[in-house]
């Protein structure tokens, strides 16, 4: 069974189309990144998956309609919506007591273990903790839940780089396994490139590109072209060209690696660069196409 299965997922706020017919299938054991500019519909999609907002179209999460069965679904789904959503008055021991009280799949000893590695005091209130500590606490709670799907919406927003690094390390080393699935959105695309198994570009409520990381490496190549080969390189129809330190860097899709090697240094591009190329052209296309 797929963890998430959506066909024709739509969501409209007044006259704004937030999700314009999304088709999506996420299998167990994947780490999927939803990547898109602000207002692209990422958070709306995530809210629909979590049963926080009603939607049109077909959507099943672990075989259930999230809007109809949010509380039931939350036994198997955990999420961190943003930094600092833990109520500010909550004390650390209260958070542990409460989650242990209401969650059938919460391993309290495990959560205490995670918290023990940090400098978070048992009696502290959330409002007394730094932003990074709040995220550590929330992550400790969530990682101690034996959930099948973990949803992270901008989990590291506003954290410094050290915390962000620790956050993803903890997620990969202490949490993720083949039975679990993680769905996450972030603005710091570069930092999660090595974390993801799949990613999806979402733009104006539509999925523009959906790709696994294996496919990504085979599909996209970035070449810093020798100046004298530039004309030949352009002949191979790059999807994007930019100048880096005075040299032309061209991005190719579905190009023959052998031929690219002759043009210059070939690398796997960053998701961010492909994002700019793809979203840039998608934006142009949809403008040209009109609505």
């Amino acid at each position: 069974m797929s963890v998430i299965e959506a066909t024709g997922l739509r969501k409209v706020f007044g006259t704004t189309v937030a999700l314009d017919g999304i088709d999506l299938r996420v299998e167990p054991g994947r780490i999927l990144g939803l990547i898109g500019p602000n207002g692209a519909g990422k958070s709306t999609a995530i809210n629909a998956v979590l049963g926080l907002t009603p939607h049109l179209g077909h959507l099943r999460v672990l075989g259930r309609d999230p809007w109809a069965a949010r509380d039931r679904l939350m036994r198997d789904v955990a999420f961190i919506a943003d930094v600092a959503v833990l109520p500010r008055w909550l004390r650390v021991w209260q958070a542990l007591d409460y989650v242990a009280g209401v969650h059938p799949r919460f391993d309290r000893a495990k959560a205490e273990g995670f918290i023990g590695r940090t400098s978070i005091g048992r009696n502290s209130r959330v409002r007394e903790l730094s932003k990074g500590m709040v995220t550590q606490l929330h992550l400790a709670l969530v990682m101690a839940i034996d959930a099948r799907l973990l949803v992270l919406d901008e989990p590291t927003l506003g954290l410094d780089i050290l915390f962000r690094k620790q956050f993803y390390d903890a997620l990969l080393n202490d949490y993720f396994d083949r039975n679990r699935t993680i769905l996450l959105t972030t603005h710091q695309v570069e930092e999660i490139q090595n974390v993801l198994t799949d990613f999806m570009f979402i733009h104006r409520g539509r999925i523009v590109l959906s790709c696994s990381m294996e496919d990504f490496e085979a599909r996209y190549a970035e070449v810093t072209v020798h100046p004298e080969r530039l004309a030949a390189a352009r002949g191979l129809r790059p999807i994007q060209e930019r100048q880096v330190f005075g040299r032309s860097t061209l991005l190719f899709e579905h190009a023959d690696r052998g031929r690219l090697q002759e043009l210059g240094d070939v690398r796997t591009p960053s998701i961010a660069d492909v994002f700019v190329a793809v979203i840039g052209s998608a934006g142009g296309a949809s403008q040209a196409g009109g609505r």
Partner: protein
Amino acid sequence: MATPGSTAMPDPSSEPQAEESPAFRPAAVSPARLFYWSVRRELWENRFLYVVPLIVAAVVLFGFAIGAAHLSHTRLGGRASAHHAALTPLDFAVFALMLTYVILTLIYCLGALHNERSDRGILFWKSLPVSDAITVIAKASIPIVILPMITFVVLVVTQGIMLLAGHVALPDHGAAGAASWVQAPIFPLWAAMLYHLLTVHALYYAPIYGWLLLVSAWARRAPILWATLPVAALLIIEKLVFNSSVFAHMLLSRIGGGPGAIEYPPPANMPIEAPTLANLGAFLASPGLWMGLAVCAVFLAAAVRVRRYQGPL
């Protein structure tokens, strides 16, 4: 602790070899338990629910101690005040704590479903397997069950201390002086208070709490205005358009507490009566009670539905 949990075991039930028996994996938590923890979280979040009554009780006792010290020094004052001793220290404790209770219920109800949205914590609560219905019912139980209990217990303890101190410290308490209240039987008063709290405040006022909770779930800001202004508008419109005041009378009779109420404070120099089955019968037989409970249920159901759609503000 430091064991990396990323053992890629195929079955979630055999994953990170837990400290406790991995075989016991309850699939669900009973609604009673969810309710219990939901109420606990209300008491964690709203500590004023029991702190304020305790402070009020302490202030009342402090005032009582000063008054008692004064009384035991000036024996004359005792007789002088006997004429207008309609309000004994016991009555004073009742009024102070009842007023506190009423104010606390209003503050609590208006904030209950609003604060969790304004502090964004609602996303955390919604990330846990607790339904909106259980959450709302737990919140409704605070003014209807928990706060009356707190008020009653604090009242009994406060009056108990007063009586104890009165017996020990006040002279001539056998005489018909100002301290004659020490001799009056206390249990009818306690029975009457408990009866009053559970019937009038818990059950007869339930639709008021339901309305306030609904407003607090729905209003984006200033729930107190949304709770009161439409009511005021309705009163005015009815007066202007129909030149009638049916709604006003409805409200007044609701606040009046319905039939079967006990007169308090009792008429001058009469002892308080304990509630009788006749009181309870009249109360339970009043259609107003059941209509009010039905309206409360409708408001709460609406609040559940509204909360389902709500996110952080």
